[in-house]
């Protein structure tokens, strides 16, 4: 039993790490652009498939870096052409537009790469389990967690110590003042959007190695990321991090005792958080109204 529990807690942490990567990207975009990016799952899938396509040429490690960059470039184009005209209008429109984009992404993926799932090969040494006792932790899973940790670490460094990051954080709090100080807010939003999409692309590449590729995989990963943001507190990236890990573990542990409810538990957690602490675990007062 204890091993089963350990297995599922680890599993939950790994999945949670994954939600974190998705949710951080979503959260960045939400904070600065006030857009719930429904197409985030689409970007994830695009990242995975691009990695699949370029792996024969640049290898696994090359794809790990190049695919998210290509995805981010697509994201930049999308932001410039489609999302930019919507700033200053009702947030409803950004939501609807990205919702439509999600359809186009899913269908486009199916059109280009086919409806059949694609297996993805990972380097052989990562496919091995760590040891006989810890048979459930393959090297790849550990590698995923490390990658997520590195990405999250770099993101926080970016936000804390670089000029771009400081501006992004300032913009989250008060975009008007940032604009008044002579900072090009349009450019800031574009870069911020690309960073968010880069994270989605990276999630896609990592997910591809673990789950394989399917055109519909993005939608399933999107909702937990929403919940991670709400549980952690809108406006707080640290909260998003915490929220993602929490719901991952909760869902993993529930899978031991009552497998049917492993999805539902995330929603229950969200309801409880909203009831007891409406702004989310680490959310700023007033961010969510």
């Amino acid at each position, binding site marked *: 039993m204890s091993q089963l529990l350990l297995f599922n807690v680890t599993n939950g942490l790994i999945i949670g790490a994954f939600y974190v990567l998705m949710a951080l990207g979503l959260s960045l975009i939400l904070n600065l652009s*006030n857009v719930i990016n429904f197409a985030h799952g689409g970007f994830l899938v695009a990242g995975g498939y691009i990695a699949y396509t370029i792996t024969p040429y640049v290898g696994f490690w090359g794809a790990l870096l190049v695919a998210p960059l290509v995805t981010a470039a697509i994201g930049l184009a999308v932001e410039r052409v489609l999302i930019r005209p919507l700033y200053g209008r009702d947030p409803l429109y950004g939501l609807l537009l990205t919702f439509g984009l999600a359809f186009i992404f899913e269908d486009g993926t199916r059109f280009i790469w086919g409806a059949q799932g694609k297996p993805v090969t990972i380097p052989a040494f990562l496919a091995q389990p760590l040891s006989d006792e810890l048979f459930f932790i393959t090297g790849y899973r550990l590698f995923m967690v490390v990658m997520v940790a590195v990405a999250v670490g770099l993101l926080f460094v970016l936000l804390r110590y670089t000029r771009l990051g400081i501006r992004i954080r300032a913009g989250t709090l008060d975009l008007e003042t940032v604009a008044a100080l002579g900072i090009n807010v349009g450019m800031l939003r574009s870069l911020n959007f690309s960073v968010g999409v880069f994270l989605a692309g990276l999630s896609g590449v990592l997910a591809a190695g673990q789950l394989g590729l399917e055109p519909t995989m993005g939608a399933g990963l999107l909702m937990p990321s929403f919940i991670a943001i709400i549980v952690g507190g809108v406006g707080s990236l640290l909260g998003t991090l915490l929220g993602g890990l929490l719901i991952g573990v909760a869902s993993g542990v529930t899978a031991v005792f009552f497998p049917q409810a492993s999805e539902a538990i995330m929603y229950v957690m969200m309801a409880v958080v909203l009831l007891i602490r409406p702004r989310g675990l680490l959310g700023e007062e007033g961010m969510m109204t």
Partner: protein
Amino acid sequence: MSKSHHARKLMVLGAIWAVLLLAPYWMPPLGGYTALGTRVLVLGIAAMSVNFLLGFTGVLSFGHAAYFGLGAYGAGLTLKFLAASTPLALICGTLLGGIAGAVLGALIVRRRGVYFAMVTIAFGQVFYYIAFQWSSLTGGDDGLRGFSRQPLDLGRFSIDIASNAQYFYYFVLFCFALVTGAMAFVLRSPFGRTMLAIRENERRARFLGIPVERHIWIAFTLSCLFVAFAGALYALINNFADPRGLHYSQSGDFVIMAVMGGMRTFWGPLLGAAVFVVLQDYLSSITINWMSFIGLMFVLVVLFFPRGLLGVIRLGRAA
């Protein structure tokens, strides 16, 4: 001005009802079929319910599919296990969705703007998973089957809405009239005016002493009741309740119908539903990539038609 305005309003209203009443006669020659009209009406109710919140209270629910689906399952389960009565099924379905909406609404109404949408989506998905996982009751992925709508028993005679598509259309039209009547009544009432006040300027409404949260909650609950009623009717169309009817992508369809038709107008969402249903029906018959086209439609509506079809007409008239 006011008199001619009033007369024109009556004329438009008369025209709308004439078109709806005669639909079974003019649709087939144009290549439609009566069941398509029934679907437009039912989805029209759903889109109007979403718009009841979006267009008239100013809050966006992106989770109405959940209450729509609950209405469908409520109606289906009632027919299957409780009693073979169409009206009872409709009532049970409506109540199931409405009560769920009232309970969750209490958690949701403190949020605003994009966060309101986000929380409604996330809560809506709960019911999708329940319908999906609780297969012993709901049929899981395959959906709920094994029930069928029953003829209406009116004491002396009964109306066979079960096998006659035309009778069923008129029954749905009757239901449609009830719901739209109820919506119009609420919107014209003093309470409806406070909804508009909240939409236009929430802070001001609050300072005028309107309990904003409570009023949004009431509007949300009413809207959930309406949409659950639509869901219950929807289950009766094919005698089938589908878990995908609870999914947030269905909510997105409702919202786009409302926006495409014109979200500041009463009848806009019905028009939006008609365009959407006909387009979907047509596209899915000619291409397997219809999803892209629907997605493209979302994008185009948002970029070029944010006021919707009726909104554009109205703007043209005002100019």
